[in-house]
């Protein structure tokens, strides 16, 4: 219930923000932060709750983006309908990849590698295929209107990405309080024990990757609508996969608000380093990287760990509590 109220607050606060500021820098930063946030939220469902660490989430991002562009350019589909189609295609692709890799019991680094490989294969395929515009990429014709999902101001795009984020948050909240979520976390923590309790790990992971892929696909669609351009490196490049996972890891894996926190913090960090250290090319990346290492080293539970360790009451060690109970 508390989380639901926070989601409402999150939605209302960011929906109103564009009406209080006209600063292009702030609005742009907010939009990019929300965009990164959606990707982290998507990665978190599979990686955080399911423990299946994907290094190739760009696969779903790029597929969503290309589908969104291709449906509009080649088939003249309305962008809103294209969004629905693109999200479904990403989701199906996620399911297929999940089925193939989980069917053969790939976990841990092997799963990470196969996702990476798939993203790379798709990048190369899109570089050489004509339907994706090969190396030239695809350009979306400019035609600003709500019906075309092209807004004349940043505000429209912010509302769009915000609503996608709210959907992602609601899905994650539902996951936290559902049987699927409980099973998913059980499989993450111990697959054999979960099996012994009647959990079918393949099915659970299959659903998780499908949901995760659909949200990542939505992020891809958003990207195309904002920048009106997509090429193989933007679509399937490793930087997209990395920003999806880094946000979730820095913020706190397997939590509802961790990815939000992580994505916003990283966006803030990268724009600060860019603005203050911009005259020394490359130094901003050094600072960014060092801070990232520091966060991962000193906050293994992510930024969200700061909040819970501040708020939590001192815990008794398990032993004492159990022993007193055993005597009874």
């Amino acid at each position, binding site marked *: 219930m508390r989380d639901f109220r926070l989601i409402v607050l999150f939605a209302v606060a960011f929906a109103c923000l564009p009406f209080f500021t006209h600063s292009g820098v702030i609005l742009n930063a907010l939009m990019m932060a929300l965009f990164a946030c959606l990707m982290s939220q998507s990665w978190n469902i599979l990686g955080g709750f399911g423990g299946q660490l994907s290094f190739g989430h760009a696969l779903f991002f790029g597929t969503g983006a290309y589908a969104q562009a291709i449906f509009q350019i080649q088939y003249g589909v309305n962008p809103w309908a294209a969004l629905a189609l693109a999200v479904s295609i990403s989701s199906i692709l996620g399911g297929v990849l999940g089925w193939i890799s989980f069917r053969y019991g790939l976990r841990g680094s092997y799963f990470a590698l196969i996702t990476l490989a798939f993203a790379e294969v798709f990048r190369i395929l899109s570089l050489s295929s004509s339907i994706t515009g090969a190396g030239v990429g695809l350009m979306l014709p400019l035609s600003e209107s709500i019906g075309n999902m092209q807004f004349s101001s940043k505000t429209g795009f912010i509302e769009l990405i915000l609503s996608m984020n709210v959907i992602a948050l609601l899905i994650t909240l539902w996951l936290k*309080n*559902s*049987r699927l979520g*409980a*099973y998913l*976390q*059980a499989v993450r*923590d*111990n697959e*054999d*024990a*979960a*099996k*012994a*309790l*009647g*959990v*079918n*790990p393949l099915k659970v992971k299959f659903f998780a990757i499908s949901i995760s892929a659909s949200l990542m696909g939505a992020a891809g669609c958003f990207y195309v609508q904002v920048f009106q351009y997509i090429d193989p490196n933007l679509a399937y490049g490793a930087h997209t996969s990395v920003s999806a996972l880094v946000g979730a890891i820095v913020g706190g894996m*397997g939590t509802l608000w961790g990815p939000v926190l992580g994505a916003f913090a990283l966006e803030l960090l990268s724009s600060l380093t860019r603005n203050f250290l911009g005259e020394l090319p490359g130094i901003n990346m050094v600072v960014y990287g060092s801070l990232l290492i520091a966060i991962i080293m000193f906050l293994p539970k992510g930024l969200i760990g700061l909040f819970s360790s501040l708020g939590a009451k001192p*815990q008794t*060690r*398990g*032993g004492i*509590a*159990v*022993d*007193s*109970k*055993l*005597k*009874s």
Partner: protein
Amino acid sequence: MKLLNVEDVSVSFGGLKAVQGVSLALEEGTLGALIGPNGAGKTTFFSIISGFVKPDLGRVQLAGKDITALTPYARAEAGLTRTFQIVQPFAAQTVGENVAVGAHLHCSSRKEALAKAREVTSWVGLSGIFDQKAGELTVAGRKRLELARALATRPKLLLLDEVLAGLNPQEIQDMLPVIQKICDSGVSVLMIEHVMQAVMSLAQYVWVLSQGQLISQGLPHVVTQDPLVIEAYLGQGTAQKIKRFAQKEAS
């Protein structure tokens, strides 16, 4: 009625014949124990019954239905749940969440599952630590958690793999009534146990496994007198020596 019927199962790992032609039938509502020296194949045998290891030969029946080809989770749905010798808690989750995973087998609502979990945890004596992280529990606590989680699936047959191992004598004393209570509530239990005190006081029937083969079975006090069993534990010729020693003492 036979709840569990294992017929002639064998499995080898490479050249090692871990289980060879073992048959076992457990009556409904009883508590049976499987004993044997280390490396006898007890845990492998449990893994065959619970579906984690596929037997090369033989079959497993639960309540008259052949379950040999079923996956572990399908067996759990059919009413057969196991615990693990090396406890496998979902360490990052609370005790309640751990148990709720088991409870979810028969109810999809989270609220209901948690309520059911609360019931089961208090039943095994863990109610005070419902919200504690499973990773923080002591061995005794983890063993109870393992038990609670399995019980939450409402099994017909519970396979307990050394739930008493690693506990101190006091903790064992506390645990015995819990196992007895489980059996009294109508759940059939098959347990692997090294703690003979538990076997003697709880088990209604005992099977002895040694080097992958069933060497003896029967009532607890009969089986423990079996020379074959004594020798399996203490080495060849020991039964004779003990007998001679006893005669000397008597004369």
